[in-house]
């Protein structure tokens, strides 16, 4: 994985902005779904699908691909939007999200959309699956395997006991080919994570279970890239990247607010923007980069 040059960083940032627009458009069309998490993770997903992952959107079944396992299935709008922009299916199809007969189920189902690595929604089980995949790979190819298994986790789902069963097992097995990425946005449905069920000291917890831990700004492409590079270089333990993100990132009135966890534009809190204007205003902000008109779009 090469170093990111300034020009490339700018390309990726613009791509993430396009993906955020698709997320907003699909949520408006669906009339339900999650806003905060998908917007907050758009930068990490962009870096993965447009730079870090070994994959081939035209051949999703390619056996040598890296695997990306989405554990917090409710942020699937960002997965679907990023996969569409990467070429797995048309961006137009994103507007079928949550509709009857759509391949884009409200929570991902791999049988409807075979390019997915798993089905998810009930929280806490993705890391175990990623551990199983990484273990199976190592049984077949030993420590020489060059495939990596990325597990995307929410911070709220770290409340689940099953996560820590998997954390222990990965530490015991020293799974170097496993990379967890935590969306540390500090919110869950009922409020802020530290009010609902405190997670800190989060870094210490993972370290004490035998993981290599990095904390980064989850909106800084260079930082995300460097962290993934470092995680791949660590050979004797699994890695986790705690990506500090701003929930609802990219749209002023959705940022940092847990009320946007499970609501789409048009159904969010009304103290700043009235419901009927939430969709239009969100898209307007993204299209204009918060008022800075993008030269290449003029």
């Amino acid at each position, binding site marked *: 994985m090469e170093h990111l040059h300034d020009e490339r960083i700018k390309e990726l940032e613009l791509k993430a902005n396009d993906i955020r627009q698709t997320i907003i458009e699909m949520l408006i069309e669906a009339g339900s779904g999650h806003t905060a998490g998908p917007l907050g993770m758009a930068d990490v997903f962009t870096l993965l699908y447009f730079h870090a992952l070994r994959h081939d959107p035209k051949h999703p079944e390619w056996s040598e691909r890296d695997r990306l396992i989405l554990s917090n299935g409710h942020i699937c709008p960002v997965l679907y939007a990023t996969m569409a922009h990467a070429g797995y299916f048309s961006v137009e199809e994103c507007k079928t999200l949550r509709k009857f007969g759509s391949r884009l189920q409200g929570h991902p189902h791999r049988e409807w959309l075979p390019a997915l690595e798993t*089905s998810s929604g009930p929280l806490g089980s993705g890391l175990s699956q990623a551990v199983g995949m990484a273990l199976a790979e190592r049984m077949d190819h030993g420590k020489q395997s060059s495939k990596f298994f990325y597990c995307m986790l929410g911070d709220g789902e770290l409340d689940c006991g099953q996560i820590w069963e998997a954390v222990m097992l990965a530490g015991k097995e020293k799974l170097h080919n496993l990379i967890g990425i935590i969306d540390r946005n500090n919110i869950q449905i009922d409020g802020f994570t530290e009010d609902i069920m405190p997670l800190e000291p989060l870094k210490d917890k993972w370290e004490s279970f035998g993981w290599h831990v990095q904390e980064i700004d989850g909106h800084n492409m260079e930082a995300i890239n460097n962290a993934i590079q470092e995680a791949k270089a660590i050979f004797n333990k699994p890695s986790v990247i705690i990506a500090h993100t701003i929930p609802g990132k990219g749209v002023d009135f959705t940022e940092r607010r847990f009320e946007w966890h499970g609501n789409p534009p048009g159904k969010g809190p009304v103290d700043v923007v009235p419901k009927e204007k939430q969709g239009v205003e969100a898209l307007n902000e993204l299209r204009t980069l918060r008022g800075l008109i993008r030269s290449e779009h003029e």
Partner: protein
Amino acid sequence: MNDMADQKLNPKLFDKDVEQAPIRKGFGEGLLQAGEEDPRVVALCADLTESTTMIRFAKKFPARFVNVGIGEQSMASVASGMSAMGKIPFFSSYAMFSPGRNWEQIRTTIAYNNRNCKIIGSHAGISVGPDGGTHQAVEDIAITRVIPRMVVIAPCDSIEAKKATLAAAKYDGPVYIRLAREGTPIVTTLDTPFAIGKAEIFFTPKNGLEIKVGIIATGSLVYNAIMAAKELEAAGIGAKVLNLPTIKPLDEEAVLALAKEAGAIVSVEEHQRKGGMGSAVAEYLVQVHPTKQAFIGVDDKFGQSGTPSELVEHYGMGISAIVSAAKKLVSQS
């Protein structure tokens, strides 16, 4: 047709000192053989390697065995992930914990996800005995058979358990195998036919007795069902016994044929009456050939400590309870 010789059952079945073996022993043998036959077979256990008899596989194939510690929820999903990479994972614990504690992980990450995983619930039923009610899984058939795609098998003895294990390894899809703990009389032989989804008549009364009742039994109580039918025969009441190892998919043809011939059914299982094998039989028959049915099983209660035979008698699943239920049904018709 359909008599004991045709099914090649244990010729010493009616002896007082009929050989007994824990049903789970057959699983341990079957898993070992499945592992030898197919390198994709892997095994996971949650700190019960010896008592679930997985130890034989673990010793022979240490690189294909994972002990996840006491973490049944994670174990189910780890198995799902291994299956995604082409493995055929068998994972075992006591039935109370798997599929008990980890039901949602089995439902979503295995069945909904259509992963080729085999769930082995040992120490199922009331005959766990002295461990008491906490450990006596008498709900596991209900919670597994309700999951779409799940195949549910309750072998009647250790020989059938071995066959079921080998068949599960070759079957592409999620399978639950329920194993009882204690010594169970050997009913079958190596030559007794076994196939997933197939039920077989294990007892037909002699002397051309008219069939008045059909006993459908699964798992560890098949022996009791046969002994009950023998008693009924001596009392002049014709009873056939259908061994139904696969609870799902149900062998509808065999169940319907017996219901039509006998006109009354007694279902026998070491499980809650609600939601178990008897319910599966009734759900089917009521649609195509409504048939009077008595349910032998635990009647909406939790278990307690005791010897297996004390508990089987106390909770109404002994030979005499089956005989009485059959007589009552026959007298009503």
